[in-house]
């Protein structure tokens, strides 16, 4: 037993518990708070995977920006206590069952991968997952998807303004 295993165990259990709260909590506020904590524990797991930059982004963008937007909308619409439970329709039962089915398939498939982390040399260790390495890729090799993302953000901005406008 070493520290890495202990940390992974703690983060993994906490991630699953918070995710469970997201899908079971009765009020959307509780779901949102549970989601924030899921994001934080996931960021911890990312650090264990040596993805420090993505972990920072996870906290800044997801927990910081996206979740604030969610909370803002919940407050704006005053959705404090929606204690309504869905009727168990056929779609719901089939959907829930298919999620379990997919989990079984994935567990068997991924369980067989037997994957271990790559052994990185000191040179690679120094650059793996750093902001410089990621930034260099994005602005050189990944130029096309980067430009597409810039278009996407513009479209999302225009779209959000159009949809949230009260009168057209």
């Amino acid at each position: 037993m070493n520290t890495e295993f202990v940390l992974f165990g703690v983060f993994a259990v906490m991630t699953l518990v918070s995710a469970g709260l997201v899908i079971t909590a009765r009020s959307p506020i509780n779901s949102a708070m549970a989601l924030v904590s899921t994001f934080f524990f996931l960021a911890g797991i990312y650090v264990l995977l040596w993805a420090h930059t993505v972990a920072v982004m996870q906290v800044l963008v997801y927990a910081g920006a996206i979740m604030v937007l969610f909370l803002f909308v919940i407050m704006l619409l005053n959705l404090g206590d929606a204690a309504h439970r869905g009727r168990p329709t056929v779609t719901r039962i089939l959907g829930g069952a298919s999620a379990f089915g997919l989990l079984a398939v994935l567990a068997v498939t991924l369980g067989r991968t037997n994957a271990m982390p790559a052994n990185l040399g000191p040179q690679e260790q120094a650059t793996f997952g750093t902001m410089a390495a990621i930034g260099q890729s994005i602005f050189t090799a990944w130029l096309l998807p980067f430009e597409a993302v810039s278009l996407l953000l513009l479209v999302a901005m225009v779209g959000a303004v159009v949809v949230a406008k009260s009168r057209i």
Partner: protein
Amino acid sequence: MNLPNLTLADFLPLLPAIIMVVAASILLLSEVFLSATASRGYQAVLTVAAAAASGAVAVGLMFEPPQEVFLGFGVLDPFSSFLTLVVSVGLGLAALSAVGFLRKRGAERGEFYALMLFASAGMSLLAMSTEFITIFVNIEVLSIATYALTAYLRRGTRPSEAGFKYFILGAFSSAILLYGTALLYGATGTTKLNDMVIPLQQALNGNPALVYVGAVLIAAGFAFKVAAVPFHMWTPDVYEGAPTPVTALMSAGVKAAAFASLVRVFLTVGKGMDPKLPLMLFATLALLTMVAGNLMAIPQRNVKRMLAYSSIAHAGYLLLGVAALFVAAPGESFRVLAASSLSGGTPLDVARSDALRGILYYLLAYTFSAAGAFAMVSALERREDEEKGTAWDLERFAGLAQRRPGYAFAMAAFMLSLGGIPPTVGFMSKLLIFQAAIDVGLVGLTIVAVLSSAAGAYYYLRVVVYMFMHPVPEGAQPLERNWGTEAALVISTVAVVLLGILPGHVTDWLAQAGTLFGQ
């Protein structure tokens, strides 16, 4: 730092999308200076001009030799250029039918046309993407623009609910597609389609389950986008709730771009796999989609909803063509040869290339017929009836031949084309797909396709019967005329008839268009 060696040639295939984005930016910026009541006639004109320009550029690009661009993230090949042309046609027709639609509702705004242009730029980029993250981002560009367009109108509850349903199922299916991508990345160590072929074969020898689960998840994600049964449940509500010109754009452009990407992805991912697996997958989807789409359309009296179900059925015929691409002789891997090397291919090679040609022809045919039909629906609907849901009832078409013979003739042409009845383009394109499917040996499935399209003819012809044989209902309001709608009707009618009687020229041209890079 090693900068990639990009040349002007890398940006060439982006040109149609750049034209659309520039036009959209002009519309957004000029809207700022307009008062609420200012005349906005120029907006549709600019949109149509941009569509025409990008379509013309796409035709020019079809004669460029196939090549990788942006270090393998995209590709310039006749296939992607042809799809851009289809998207431009869909955009132009949808924008023309939007003129009257928006004016009647006092909702003409630059943002509407700008979002249409953004969505089309995303479709054009999607057709040329050959890397999974790029594909995903471009799917999101076109989806987010269409979500916003669906919820554009603030009239009653329908548009926003349709927008919400579309959004949730769209985001859900994107997540599924992305998860499949992540699994394939795990199996191969790359996200570029062209780099994936060799590692995929190694992965299939090592841990094939990972590849198969990834491929199935990607197929499920695409099945949502093209509205294949059983992933179609969003289609009727969204098509009905969205503004009619947006429905036209969705049924023509979104579907064409998603099919293009599906074909491109699976022609690579399927390599090295046992060809039976993609074949079974797409044959099953095709069977369910054709049969269920047609059966569900039959009881619909609401023409807009009927066209939504019919678009599901058409996705089924297209999936039949896709399934035909994956038929291979034992021990052979399927491939689609370029037109130039066809003469040396086996009969199966020829049949598979015919199937690809059939898919392209079908997409063009469906774009003209469906966009025309939706233009007609938008010409007849009145917004007062929308909330009651009677705006699109068959009764609205009763006696149209007496009130507006030209309209009735155009609508009849679209219905015949959608029903696959000669001498229209719909017939020719169906023939091409069905023939290719028989040539590769999918006889049973083709018989089902023929039977279900015969059943489909019933609900298309019912519209024709209402237009020509039913009396004009009493108290019918006069029909407003609009130049945009009439232009859309004329263009689509001419195309539906001309492409139907001159198929030889078109298929020669399509043989060229059916050239994919790396095949």
